């Protein structure tokens, strides 16, 4: 099947009225989640996961993907108008976006952020379409050792990029692997650490864990301060950027797109990192780097393009290798499995309708977002004015319903509350939750690949190093793990931005 046929098939699926509706619902919820501080795409996708159980797999994926890239669009609005990032990937947008708003240029800031997001999101989808199928074909040559090494590399990269000491991030990944091993052993069917709780036989659910670690803990942290948000009171005019605005920002948009897409593909990379890197690059190439932070349009356009392109890139390892690149993709992987799909190299061949339908829906979703974000900006601003003391009980209620309706079980709710407390403590003691979630999801797959590899090699761990692809992946992991011994690499990591753990 060539590209043209595939794209036509994709549009045929994506343009069905029910898929259009779910795409619309996804991007609206995504924008809302992005606009509202304290509720990121990870929590939102987990919350809405149970609501997709009654729809077709393709509609579910279209909606959940819409939430992800919709949140990237919406996050910038809060950054620009309130100086609080709506979600983690919009942290950098605060720097110049809010300054633009203070100077009466909120309109062009919001406008360029929407256009940059649209351009980058669309290019990201094109990249996904071009790269995913050949990569999937290559991935067919992967055996258990290659999968094991790839997952180890993903975890290593994520811990390498995490803020704070590396031992903490690695420790969280190891704890995630342990949590992932709770339940029935997939090879022998014997129970592990289940404490005779029936609900634990299937393992610790990713949804209660994510909602607890990201949703509940965020609320707990927010309520311990009296939150007074003030929306920047300004008339939002001239949403369409001027010719000079375009001239200033077009280079930043394309550089941001390139950076975002490739960092998005990298397991462990993603929208947050790419927006920071894009900002750093813009500062570097600028003739007036000292003016960054005072309201330069490039400082909005570059990072906004980067975080949107990264969403397209992040789908590549998930759809072609079955490996999630970040926490959001980990939840999507879980949801695809719940719907009976196995993301991986066979997905493109076995379910072309689903693959291409989901990909082409992102084009449509990006167009919907442009329409939603420009004319409806006033509506989002009004939502921003909802006081947090009224908002947080609703967030908690969504979490409770989401956890309960997974298996109609109170145990899942208690697990979620437990993870909420744990997440609160993690944040108090500066431990990042993202490596834990990725390891929790990868754990069962990683264990199966490890045990199969050792069976294949009659117990020799050298199998991970003697096979070429696996060897290269392991070598990259080892280099990253050995960073404390390599001074220039250590310096490089030290300048990585302090990123929030919600990716």
């Amino acid at each position, binding site marked *: 099947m060539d590209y043209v046929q595939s794209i036509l098939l994709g549009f045929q699926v994506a343009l069905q009225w029910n898929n259009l509706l779910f795409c619309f619902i996804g991007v609206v919820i995504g924008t809302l989640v992005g606009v509202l501080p304290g509720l990121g795409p990870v929590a939102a996708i987990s919350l809405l996961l*149970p*609501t997709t159980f*009654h729809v077709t797999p393709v509609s579910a994926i279209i909606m959940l993907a819409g939430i992800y890239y919709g949140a990237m669009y919406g996050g910038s609005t809060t950054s620009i108008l309130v100086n609080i990032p709506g979600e983690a990937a919009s942290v950098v947008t605060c720097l110049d976006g809010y300054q633009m708003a203070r100077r009466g240029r909120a309109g062009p800031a919001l406008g360029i952020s929407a256009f940059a997001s649209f351009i980058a999101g669309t290019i990201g989808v094109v990249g996904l379409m071009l790269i995913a199928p050949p990569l999937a074909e290559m991935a067919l040559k992967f055996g258990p050792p290659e999968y094991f090494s790839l997952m180890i590399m993903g975890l290593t990269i994520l811990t390498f990029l995490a803020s704070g*000491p590396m*031992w*903490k991030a*690695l*420790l969280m990944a*190891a*704890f995630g*692997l*342990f949590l992932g*091993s709770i339940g029935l*052993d997939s090879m*022998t069917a*014997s129970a*592990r*650490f289940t404490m005779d709780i029936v609900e634990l036989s299937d393992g610790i659910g990713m949804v209660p864990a994510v909602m607890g670690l990201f949703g*509940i803990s965020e*609320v*707990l*942290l927010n*309520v*311990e*301060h*009296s939150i007074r948000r003030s929306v920047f009171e300004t008339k939002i005019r001239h949403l369409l950027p001027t010719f000079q605005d375009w001239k200033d920002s077009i280079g930043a948009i394309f550089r941001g797109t390139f950076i975002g897409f490739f960092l998005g593909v990298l397991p462990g990379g993603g929208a947050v990192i790419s927006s920071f890197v894009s900002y750093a690059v813009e500062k570097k190439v600028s003739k007036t780097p000292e003016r960054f932070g005072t309201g330069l349009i490039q400082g909005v356009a570059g990072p906004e393009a980067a975080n949107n392109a990264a969403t397209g890139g992040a789908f590549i390892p998930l759809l072609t290798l079955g490996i999630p690149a970040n926490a959001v993709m980990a939840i999507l992987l879980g949801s695809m499995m719940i719907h009976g799909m196995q993301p991986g190299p066979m997905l493109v061949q076995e379910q072309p309708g689903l693959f291409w339908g989901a990909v082409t829906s992102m084009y449509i979703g990006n167009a919907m977002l442009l329409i939603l974000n420009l004319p409806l900006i006033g509506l989002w601003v009004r939502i921003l004015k909802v006081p947090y*003391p*009224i908002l*947080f*009980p*609703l967030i*908690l*209620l969504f979490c*409770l*319903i989401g956890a*309960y*309706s997974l298996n*109609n079980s*109170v145990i899942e*709710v*208690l697990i979620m*509350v437990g993870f*909420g*407390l744990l997440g*609160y403590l993690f944040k*108090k*003691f*500066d*431990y990042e939750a993202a490596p834990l979630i990725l390891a929790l999801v990868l*754990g069962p797959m990683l*264990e199966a690949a*490890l*045990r199969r590899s*050792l*069976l294949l*090699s*009659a*117990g*020799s*761990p050298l199998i991970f190093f003697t096979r070429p692809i696996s060897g290269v992946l392991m070598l990259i992991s080892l280099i990253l793990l050995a960073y404390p011994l390599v001074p220039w690499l250590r310096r490089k990591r030290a300048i990585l931005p302090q990123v929030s753990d919600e990716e």
Partner: protein
Amino acid sequence: MARFNNDQVSGAVWIAVGIAIALGSLRYGLGPLESPGTGFLPFWAGGIIAFLALIGVIQSSLSRRRGTGWRPILRGVLWHKPLIVVAALFAYALLMKPLGFVLCTVLFIGFLLRAVEPQPWSVVIVGAIGTALGAFALFNLWLKAQLPLGPWGF
């Protein structure tokens, strides 16, 4: 507590957690390397946790000597509010089946609106009842989520 810094304390807890996991895994059997057993992965995960935490404790002990002390985690925050929220969450989880979704949600939302950052009674009553009925209609009636019904049928 002030004799130690935050990383020393959390590192010590993690060492205990790691050792407990590794020891707990032994009863499932590690198996030979050519055919790893059920306890193999959790054993190594526990061992790695304890090892990394030990590195953390050593590093933080060195930084303690350089002056990194205990950073109070509850100073300057309204710590009783998260406590109220957690208590409400546990109560909700335990009461949602006996009381049913709607009544339990009315009480939960009403309590949070009034107890955490007190809202006027009109907001509390309308917000609690409206949210409960709205959520019931959305999740139970439209999305068929099978939320628990109380003895009174809702």
